[in-house]
C-alpha cells in the first residue's frame, strides 16, 4: 500500500523558503461558510470494499460508519452495532442499532452488511479488500483455488441474516480479533442503490456516515461533502461541510496550507518540518502512525541464510542517525515488529539485535563468516528518501562491517513488488507495512503466513498466532502474539528500522482538532468546528 501511497510526483526541495506570514481566511470568504478542507492525493477508489489506499480510506471515513470503531486507546467500541458477541470466537452475533439510515434514507440493516461483504469477498469482482473476508466461512467457494473456474456461489455461507437487525457471522477458525477488523472502513455496509449500479456508486458513493457527498467525485480536483442532516449515529458532524482537496504532491499541499487555502494537511514533508514548527506553532503536530519500515533479507539467497549475519547487519545500522539526517528526526527508530501505537508493543522486543553496536556487530559478522562479493541493496524509486537512507545504511555497513563492495538496485515501482514476490531480490531490500487495525495480529500474520516474500519458514510463529486468535481472553491472546513476535525477531528475516510519524498542520480557521492515530483519517473528522 505504501508504494502507492507515496506516489508523490517530484521531490524537488529547491528553494530555502524564508519565514512567511500565514495568511488567514479560508476558501469561502464570507462568514457563513462553516466547512473545512482536508488535503489528500487522488484516491484510487471510494467503494469501501474496494478501497485500500490511504487517501480513499480518509474520504470513506467521513462517508461511512462501520459496525465497530476504536476508542482513543485503540480498543474496539460499537459504532453501528449495539453488541457484538461470541462464546467461542468462531460464531459471532451482531445486533445493529435500529433507526440508522443511509444518505438516501434507506435503513441500514443486517442485509446491507451481508450485501457489502458478499460483493467484496466475490473473487471475480477483483475488489481490493477481498482478503479481509477470508476468515468467514464459505470464502473458498467465492474464490476457488482454480482461478479460471467460476465460483459456485456469490454468497458467503457464513453470513446469516437472522432479522433486520441481527447478523450471524460464522468463521472458518476462531478469530478473537474480529471486532478490530470490523472497525476497518472496508467493512462498511452498502445500500441497495449500490448493488444495481456499482460504477455509478464509485463516482457518487451513498454512505451512512456523518458526511454525505455534495455533487460527485471531481477527479484530481476535489471531493465535496456536506453534513448529513438525517444522521442518527454516534458521531454527528459539527462542521457544515468537508472538502477533500486533491493535490499532486505533498509540497503543493503544504504550500496551500501556508497560504491558508487548505485547513488540514497530514503529509507535511519531513524536510519542511522545522519550518512548519516555526510557522504554525501549536498548529503543528507530530503524531505516531502505524506505518513501519523494515530491512528484509532474501533468505533464499545462501549469503543471507545465516541468522548471525542478518543480526550483524541489523546491529551495524545506526537508526537514530539515519532518521536525523534523512527525516529531520521526525520518524522514530524502533526495536519491534509492531508500531508503538499497537496494544502489546514492547519497546525492547528486539533487544540487542536491533541496537546499534558496531563492535559487537563486527565480531558477530566475522563469526558468521563475513560476506564475500558484492552486496546489493534494493529499493523502489517511489520516493527520493529511500535512496538517501539506503546510502546511509551502505556507508554504515562499509564502515562497521568492512564490506567493501556495496551497490544499489533501484527498481521501478511497477516492478518492485513483482520482483520481491517472485523471490528475485538481489540483496536486503526495503519493506514496509501500513496498519489496517491496531492489533499485533495485523503485523505478524503477514510475516508468518506463506507465501512469505523473504522465504522465511514461519510455521512455529504461525502456530502461536493461531493459538492467540482462538484465545478468548485478550490478555492471554496478547502474550501469545508477543511470543510469536519473539520467534520472528530471533530468526530476524527482517529487521525493524523506524516507525513513521504523521507531520500534521492545520489552519487557524478550524477548532476542536482531535488528532487520533486510531481513526482512519487520523483526525476525528466529525468533531472539527469552523470559526
Amino acid at each position, binding site marked *: *500500500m*505504501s*508504494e*502507492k501511497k507515496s*506516489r508523490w*510526483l*517530484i521531490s*524537488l526541495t529547491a*528553494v530555502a523558503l*524564508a519565514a*512567511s506570514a500565514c*495568511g488567514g481566511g479560508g*476558501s469561502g470568504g464570507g462568514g457563513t461558510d462553516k466547512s473545512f478542507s482536508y488535503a489528500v492525493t487522488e484516491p*484510487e*477508489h471510494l467503494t469501501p470494499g474496494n478501497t*485500500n*489506499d490511504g487517501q480513499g480510506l480518509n474520504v470513506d471515513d467521513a462517508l461511512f460508519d462501520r459496525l465497530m470503531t476504536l476508542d482513543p486507546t485503540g480498543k474496539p467500541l460499537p459504532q453501528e452495532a449495539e453488541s457484538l458477541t461470541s462464546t467461542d470466537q468462531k460464531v459471532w452475533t451482531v445486533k445493529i442499532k435500529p433507526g440508522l439510515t443511509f444518505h438516501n434514507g434507506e435503513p441500514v440493516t443486517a442485509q446491507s452488511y451481508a450485501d457489502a461483504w458478499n460483493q467484496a469477498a466475490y*473473487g*471475480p*469482482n*477483483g475488489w*481490493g479488500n*477481498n*482478503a479481509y473476508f477470508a476468515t468467514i466461512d464459505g470464502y473458498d467457494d467465492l*474464490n*476457488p*483455488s482454480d*482461478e479460471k473456474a467460476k*465460483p459456485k456461489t456469490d454468497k458467503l455461507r457464513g453470513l446469516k441474516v437472522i432479522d433486520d437487525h441481527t447478523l450471524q457471522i460464522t468463521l472458518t477458525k476462531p478469530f478473537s480479533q474480529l471486532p478490530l477488523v470490523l472497525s476497518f472502513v472496508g467493512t462498511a455496509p452498502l445500500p441497495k442503490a449500490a448493488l444495481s449500479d456499482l*460504477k455509478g456508486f*464509485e463516482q457518487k458513493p451513498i454512505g451512512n456516515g456523518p458526511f454525505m457527498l455534495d455533487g460527485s467525485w471531481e*477527479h*484530481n*480536483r476535489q471531493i465535496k461533502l456536506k453534513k448529513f442532516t438525517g444522521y442518527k449515529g454516534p458521531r454527528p458532524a459539527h462542521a457544515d461541510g468537508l472538502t477533500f*482537496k486533491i*493535490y*499532486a*504532491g505533498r*509540497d*503543493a*499541499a503544504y*504550500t*496551500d496550507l*501556508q*497560504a491558508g*487555502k487548505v485547513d488540514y494537511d497530514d503529509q507535511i514533508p519531513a524536510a519542511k518540518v522545522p519550518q512548519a514548527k516555526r510557522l504554525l506553532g501549536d498548529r503543528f503536530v507530530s503524531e505516531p502512525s502505524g506505518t513501519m519500515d523494515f530491512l528484509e533479507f532474501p533468505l533464499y539467497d545462501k549469503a543471507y541464510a545465516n541468522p548471525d549475519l542478518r543480526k550483524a547487519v541489523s546491529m551495524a545500522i545506526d537508526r537514530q542517525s539515519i532518521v536525523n539526517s534523512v527525516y529531520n528526526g521526525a520518524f522514530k527508530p524502533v526495536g519491534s515488529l509492531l508500531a508503538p501505537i499497537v496494544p502489546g508493543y514492547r519497546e525492547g522486543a528486539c533487544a540487542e539485535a536491533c541496537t546499534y553496536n558496531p563492535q559487537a556487530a563486527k565480531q558477530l559478522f566475522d563469526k558468521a563468516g563475513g560476506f564475500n562479493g558484492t552486496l546489493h541493496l534494493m529499493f523502489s524509486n*517511489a520516493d527520493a528518501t529511500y535512496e538517501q537512507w539506503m546510502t546511509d545504511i551502505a556507508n554504515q555497513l562499509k564502515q562497521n562491517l568492512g564490506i567493501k563492495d556495496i551497490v544499489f538496485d533501484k*527498481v*521501478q*515501482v*511497477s*516492478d*518492485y*513488488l*513483482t520482483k520481491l514476490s517472485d523471490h528475485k531480490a538481489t540483496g536486503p531490500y526495503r*519493506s*514496509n507495512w*501500513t496498519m*489496517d487495525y491496531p492489533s499485533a495480529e495485523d503485523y505478524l500474520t*503477514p510475516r508468518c503466513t506463506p507465501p512469505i516474500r523473504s522465504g522465511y519458514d514461519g510455521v512455529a510463529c504461525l502456530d502461536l498466532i493461531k493459538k492467540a486468535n482462538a484465545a478468548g481472553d485478550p490478555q492471554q491472546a496478547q502474550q501469545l502474539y508477543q511470543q510469536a513476535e519473539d520467534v520472528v525477531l530471533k530468526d530476524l528475516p527482517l529487521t525493524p528500522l523506524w516507525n513513521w510519524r504523521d507531520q500534521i498542520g492545520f489552519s487557524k480557521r478550524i477548532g476542536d482538532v482531535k488528532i487520533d492515530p486510531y481513526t482512519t483519517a487520523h483526525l476525528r473528522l466529525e468533531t472539527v468546528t469552523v470559526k
Partner: protein
Amino acid sequence: MWRFVLRRLLQMVPVVLGTTFLIYVLVFALPGDPIRVLGGDKPMPPSVYEALRHHYHLDEPLVVQYGRYLLGLFRGDFGETLNGQSVSSLMASSWTVTAQLALTAWIFELGMGIALGVWAGLRKGGIVDSLVLSGTTFVIAVPQFVLGYSAQLVFGLKLGLFPTVGTDDGWPYSYLLPGMILGSLSLAYIARLTRTSLVENMRADYVRTALAKGLPRRRIVVRHTLRNSLIPVVTYLGIDLGNLLAGAIIIEGIFNLPGIGQQVFLAIQVKDGPTVVGISTFLVLIYLAANLVVDIVYGALDPRIRYE
C-alpha cells in the same frame, strides 16, 4: 494548397497507427506487473489477481491486446485506467488544464518574446539590447523549478498577487503565474531569435534599396524586415506549442495543476497502459497538426514558398 493539406492529413494515418503500436509495445515491455502494484504490500488473493488480469485483458497476448485497443479506438473508447476510471474522461479533464496552461504560456512568450526581440534588435548595442541579452541569459541559466518555486513564494505566498496552487480560480487567473514561468524559457529564445534575425535582415540589400527609394523606416521594418525575420521564429513557436502541450510535469507539479504531464508520469510509474497510450496518441496528433500549421503559415509570411 488544399491538395497539400489533404496529402499531409492522409500521411498522418500511418504515423498515428505506427506510434500507437510502438507506444503500446513499449508500455507492454516495461518491467513489472501493474496488478501486483494495485495490491501493494497487502496480500492479494489469487482469485482477485486473476480476475483483475482478466478484466484488463493482461492475460492475452500482446497482439490481441493491441487489436482490442484499436477496435475500441474506432468506437471512440480509450479504455479504462487501472482504477476503473474512463480514460476518455480523464483525458478530457487533464487536457483542458494542460491546454489552458500551454496557451497562456504560448501567448505570453509570443507577445513578449517578439516585442522584446524587435525592441532590442532595432536598438542594437543600446541599453535595452544589453538588458534583454543579459535578462534572457539569466532566464536560460536558471532551472525552471527554481523560477517556479521562487515565483510561487514571492508572488503567491508573500504578496498574494496570484493563487499559490490549483485551478480553483479558473482561467486565466490560476494559470497566469505558472504560464509565465513555463513560457519564460522559450520567451528568452524567441527574443534572441527575433533580435538576431532582425539585425541580420536590417543589413540586407533590399533594406538599403527601400531606404534609397525613400520608404519610411517604420514601414520597412513592419512590412519587410519583420516578416522575413519571423520565419525561424514561427518554426520555433509551432514546435514549441507542441512541447508545451506535451506536458510540463515540473510546473504542473509545483502549481498542482492536474494536467496531462502529471497523469502520464503517474501512469508510467504503475504501468497503466491505456492511460499512457491514450494521452501519447493525442500528443502525436497535436505535434502533427502543429507542424502542418507551421508549414501553412510559412506561405503567408514568404510568398516564395509554394506547396507542392
